[in-house]
């Protein structure tokens, strides 16, 4: 005891502080605590970027998942068992696959959900295929995931790049901004941006647009002034953004700052970025999978529940994560099974699901892409803006009510999936 006292007094305050610091970091950084296995619980694994340039969107995904799980459990869970969700920051493609593997092998999750980064989707899909676990992508847009890299165990509730481009493209054609018009684009310099540029070029060329120039922008670039000068000198008829994450907010703020008035449109977007750009800075035409102003009862109920819980409306990333938890629970309850093969068969047969839009959606068997309505949004004039959230107006659903949902998706010629 005496020795202990001497030991304690010999530790300097600095060492003690350092110790506390290390301990605190340890607690914060430690991954999810291992939970005891029990028969009356069904577990889903959720992975999405919580930090880095996609982190802002990941937060909405996580909040949406929590809300969905609460609602599923309040409605009786899955086959009378409680639904539990394991959530992790996927960080990067390597970490994503390590964590996915741990969720499957150690935590015995029934399925994997989530993601925003297309690169991480790819590595998780490999784990899914190897372990024969279902993975549903809720935020990776790259066409290649549904084409060359498709696999039997990966489904996509998030739309593919082609769906975004064709949705926004229709609106641009209606505004007379495609045929014979000169377009100038800015592209995020990584896999997603390159894939999107390819799809954008295909669409614009097929519809008579004239390509003026494309500038690749590093993902960590914050200043767009030099590119704005280039745009000003090129005098295009249309400026296209194939940018991602915070890049879009920076671009919109500075585009307004430099007072350029060429029409702007983008082929990839998230509502949170419009909110961050804010009134007066947000402008242009952009495609989204969903937004909080859609006039359907299910959307209104979801927005009300989300706003009540988190004090702000959900953005489009919340849509995919919320709905896939609901779809998964509904399917398991209907099939009275969590069996992967049965779920795949059920979905491939074209089971329909309500996803808070005017028409139900379904997974297309050929590439596992979810077929559903999309929208384009445009900035509201400043005089009509009443609050910080409702700063845009929406098109009606795309495709229109009389059209096949598949008209905006990739055709066989554009991207072929050989299911393995």
């Amino acid at each position: 005891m005496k020795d202990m006292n001497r030991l304690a007094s010999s530790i300097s305050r600095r060492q003690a502080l350092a110790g506390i610091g290390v301990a605190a970091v340890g607690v914060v950084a430690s991954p999810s605590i291992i939970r005891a296995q029990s028969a009356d619980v069904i577990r889903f694994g959720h992975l999405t970027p919580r930090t880095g340039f996609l982190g802002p969107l990941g937060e909405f995904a996580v909040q949406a998942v929590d809300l969905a799980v609460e609602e599923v459990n309040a409605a009786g869970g899955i086959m009378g068992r409680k639904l539990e969700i394991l959530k992790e920051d996927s960080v990067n493609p390597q970490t994503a696959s390590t964590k996915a593997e741990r969720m499957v092998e150690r935590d015995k999750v029934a399925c994997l959900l989530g993601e925003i980064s297309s690169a991480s989707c790819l590595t998780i899909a490999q784990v899914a295929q190897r372990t024969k676990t279902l993975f549903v992508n809720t935020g990776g847009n790259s066409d290649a995931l549904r084409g060359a890299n498709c696999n039997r165990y990966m489904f996509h509730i998030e739309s593919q790049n082609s769906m975004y481009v064709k949705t926004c493209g229709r609106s641009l054609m209606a505004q007379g901004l495609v045929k014979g018009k000169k377009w100038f684009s800015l592209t995020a310099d990584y896999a997603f941006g390159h894939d999107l540029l390819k799809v954008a070029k295909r669409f614009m060329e097929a519809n008579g647009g004239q390509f003026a120039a494309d500038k690749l922008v590093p993902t960590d670039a914050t200043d767009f002034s030099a590119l704005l000068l280039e745009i000003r000198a090129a005098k295009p008829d249309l400026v296209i953004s194939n940018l991602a994450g915070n890049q879009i907010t920076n671009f919109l703020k500075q585009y307004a700052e430099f007072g350029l008035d060429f029409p702007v449109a983008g082929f990839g977007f998230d509502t949170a970025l419009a909110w961050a750009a804010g009134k007066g800075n947000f402008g242009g035409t952009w495609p989204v999978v969903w937004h909080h102003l859609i006039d359907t009862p299910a959307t209104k109920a979801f927005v009300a529940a989300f706003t009540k819980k988190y004090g702000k409306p959900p953005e489009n990333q919340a849509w995919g994560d919320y709905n896939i938890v609901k779809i998964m629970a509904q399917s398991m309850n209907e099939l009275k099974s969590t069996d992967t093969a049965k779920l795949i068969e059920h979905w491939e047969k074209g089971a329909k699901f309500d996803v808070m839009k005017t028409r139900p959606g379904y997974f297309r068997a050929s590439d596992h892409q979810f077929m559903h309505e999309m929208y384009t949004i445009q900035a509201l004039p400043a005089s009509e803006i009443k609050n910080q959230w409702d700063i845009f107006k929406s098109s009606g659903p795309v495709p229109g009510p009389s059209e096949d949902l598949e008209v905006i998706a990739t055709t066989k010629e554009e991207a072929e999936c050989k299911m393995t």
Partner: protein
Amino acid sequence: MLTLFIQQILNGLLDGVYYLLIAIGLSLIFSLGGIVNLAHGAFYAIGAYLTVVLGPHIGFGGALVVSPVLVAILGIIFERGLFQRFYRADPILSLLLTFGLAMVAEQTLRMIFGAPPLSYSIPSWLRGQIFLGDFIYSKYRAMLLLVAALCVVGLWFLLQKTAFGRVVRAGVQNPDMVGALGISLKPYMMSVAALGIGLAGLAGVLLAPIYSIHPAMGQEIITPAFVVVVIGGLGSFWGVVVAALLVGLVKGTTIALGYPQWSITVIYFMMLLVLLFRPRGLFGERIQRFE
């Protein structure tokens, strides 16, 4: 075409100034205390968030004055509470400390304000563009430039022309001798930390209306700012200024030549060259303690 090229180069020079306010503080704190402050970017982020919080109440003009002062006070608290314990310690320790602080600060911002970026716009009285013939520049950036230039000149005056500056410069070269002469460096260290960190806060206020405001914004700016300090040379006031302009110039030229995708890489390449051929930096002074 030539006009555009010239404009790009001028724009590049101005671009470099944004890093300057961060880099000067970094360089000062390192020169005097030997602390490589990896948390410097966090103070920049705090400055930006304070603008969003205070702006609606006291206006942008008010925030421009109040936010940097609050950040500077925070700087004093950290200097007294933490940094001063590491002035004579192995630099690795302060590196670890400030690295940890940067992470804690980022997470704290995320916990308070959420991960999604916040919006803040240029105040209406600073909106608009300046046209000179074929040249265009944003009115807001012209103001930003003016404020930054005033800060640099003011700081130079303080360090070179006042009694305060003489002690600080002596402290950089030989702290023991300063002590032997009966001058306590403590209040000077504190003032320098407050100044350097306050400038980072000011940069946060100035860039909030044009950049995206998110918890990790500090990380975004700290790396290029370090590059500027390394290229310019530690301890050299004008070295940092010249390096900031040089970095901007090279970036601007790269974009003007049609390679925007290389505009970030090229500044790291510059740093590599400087480290290979002139590790002291372009204008770095010989500081006895660090030789």
